[in-house]
């Protein structure tokens, strides 16, 4: 789960991680009020969306007066911000973070992530702050310091020293940096973060260390023990169909193509998308109804696929294991009865209770296209949408 920068900074505050003075604003008037309370110019007006690259996209601007704050806030709130992470359609900005401008001496990079290969928590830091860290990693990997923390032992003093000295910090900055890293690590573990990133982390002219930016993602699997984080969810940042699907515990991702597809199991669902593409069409979605899906879930999944206006044909690919083919067939028939399926549907079923499933579909009176195997299914649906 993703949250906004201003929400991540609320957590930083709770963990005594230094951030610039500031506040969130949903209108130009609110932005003026926040700016007025900061006690000095310039201030920074930052668009709040769940995507990186906001600065380059024109969503982060410096204001030197109340008039400028008013003008910039009016411009940014309501704009459609396009960055390398939003896709060409961009994202509508609904709020800004207004913060005190700082006298910056140096920009650093710091992040914490779980490393899947070593099963350790990795802290990464670099003197090349403010840049795309993937680019730094590709061009000059020696500029990135990594320390690996065993989650059973936790963060040790030497980890922090390796980072501090590796970043060539002055003694005054080291004194501020080490407790900050300890607090960040505590936050990371306490909240089951899957990414905690500060880019840039700045050293000010006065040698203080301040998190100018803040990005936190959470492990969805751990949200059950962090009910307070759920309040941070912003459904405006999510695809409406994906929000709808999440209500039914369906793994749905909206894509750009026109072949809707419903599959059980994530791996088979991905492979089915690939097959659609290889047959010359484009998948409109990823939808894994899960190993133990009920007829109800199948029905809702189909309804969500059908509400995507781009969908011109549907491929249902089920390998019955725990999800039995008759359960699937019942769900399809229900969905057809309730919503009316107006696009052609190709069905490929195999596995548990396949005969019963085929019988239910055949007796339903629905005009479904049966497929003999995977290849056949992909070719048939691709031919339909052409």
């Amino acid at each position: 789960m993703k949250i906004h920068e201003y929400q991540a900074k609320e957590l930083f505050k709770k963990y005594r991680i230094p951030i610039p003075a500031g506040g969130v604003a949903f209108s130009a008037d609110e932005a003026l009020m926040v700016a007025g309370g900061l006690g000095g110019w310039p201030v920074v007006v930052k668009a709040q969306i769940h995507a990186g690259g906001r600065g380059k996209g024109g969503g982060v601007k410096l204001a030197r007066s109340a008039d400028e704050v008013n003008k910039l806030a009016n411009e940014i709130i309501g704009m459609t911000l396009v960055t390398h992470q939003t896709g060409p359609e961009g994202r509508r900005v609904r709020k800004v973070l207004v913060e005190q401008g700082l006298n910056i001496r140096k920009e650093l990079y710091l992040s914490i992530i779980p490393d899947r290969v070593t099963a350790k928590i990795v802290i990464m830091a670099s003197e090349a702050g403010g840049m795309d860290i993937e680019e730094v990693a590709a061009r000059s990997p020696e500029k990135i310091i990594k320390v690996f923390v065993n989650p059973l032992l936790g963060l040790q003093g030497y980890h922090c020293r390796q980072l501090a000295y590796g970043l060539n910090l002055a003694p005054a900055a080291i004194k501020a940096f080490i407790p900050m890293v300890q607090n960040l690590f505590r936050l990371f573990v306490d909240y089951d973060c899957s990414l905690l990133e500060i880019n840039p982390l700045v050293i000010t002219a006065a040698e203080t260390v301040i998190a100018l930016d803040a990005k936190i993602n959470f492990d969805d699997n751990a949200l059950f023990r962090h009910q307070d984080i759920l309040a941070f969810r912003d459904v405006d940042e999510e695809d409406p169909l994906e929000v709808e699907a999440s209500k039914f515990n369906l793994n749905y991702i909206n894509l750009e193509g026109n072949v809707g597809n419903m599959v059980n199991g994530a791996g088979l669902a991905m492979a089915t998308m690939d097959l659609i593409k290889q047959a010359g069409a484009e998948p409109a979605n990823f939808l894994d109804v899960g190993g133990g899906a009920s007829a109800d879930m199948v029905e809702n999944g189909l309804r969500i696929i059908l509400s995507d206006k781009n969908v011109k044909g549907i491929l249902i690919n089920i390998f019955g294991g725990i999800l039995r083919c008759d359960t699937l067939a019942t769900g399809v028939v229900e969905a057809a009865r309730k919503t009316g399926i107006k696009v052609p549907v190709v069905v490929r079923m195999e596995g548990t209770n396949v005969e019963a499933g085929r019988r239910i579909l055949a007796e339903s009176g629905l005009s479904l296209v049966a497929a003999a195997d995977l290849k056949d299914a992909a070719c048939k649906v691709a031919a339909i949408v052409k």
Partner: protein
Amino acid sequence: MSIFVNKDTRVVVQGITGKEGQFHTRNCAAYGTQVVAGVTPGKAGQTVDAIPVFNTVADAVRQTGADCSLIFVPPPFAADAILEAADAGIRLMVAITEGIPVLDMMKVKNAIEGKPVRLIGPNCPGIITPGEAKIGIMPASIHTPGGPIGVVSRSGTLTYEVVHQLTQQGIGQTTCIGIGGDPVNGTNFVDCLAAFEKDPDTSGVVMVGEIGGNAEETAAEFIQKHMTKPVIGFIAGLTAPPGRRMGHAGAIISGSSGTAQAKIAAMKAAGIHVCENLGALGDLCGKVFK
């Protein structure tokens, strides 16, 4: 022969009295698997289809000689269940549970490292040696006993698809293992490939990967250096958009790493027979393995 499990494997089911636990215990036992015990805290003395239930894994091991545990415990308590089994002297833990927090799994992985135990999963369909033992949730009917092909996969239903196509080609399986779709798991591709290479009854392997991480690249390197048996590889997720979690917690392209294209390139470079179209996998197996 087979790898990791056979007809002598003695299974304790953790979470046996739950809905899923009961359902799959029945199916495993019906297949011929020796399910000798179950564990649900507070339910010692009960039985599930005449299988005795114990409060702790330690009790189950002591009284039944179980050496393998099949875990259906819900995510908040699953790490605890795995560690309990490891401490009780279980040598093989098969964790079916989907949705265990990554931090929990990282702790488990570090805790069992160096111990004489193997963890398969989590978030996996389990392991089956056709004709001998089914320790998991896979549909039994699609498998063909007797080998000579081993299957190892990160996905559940995709494994069923592969096994089904093998069976349709008249090719049997020695052992089929789902290693799970989570970013941090116990047994990896290399562990399984090494075991298949050693198993005299296995003459080739189908390896099924997907986007995210670099387990397939590591496996390709191992295959090139250490395997004499032919390997067919398939990678799901060529059309997956970057930065999105494709159902499995571990199936995500981060920045430019973990793409299907990179994995396929690494596998081809290592001399693996890469199948790029799932519909054609059976045919390729027929050609390579016969």
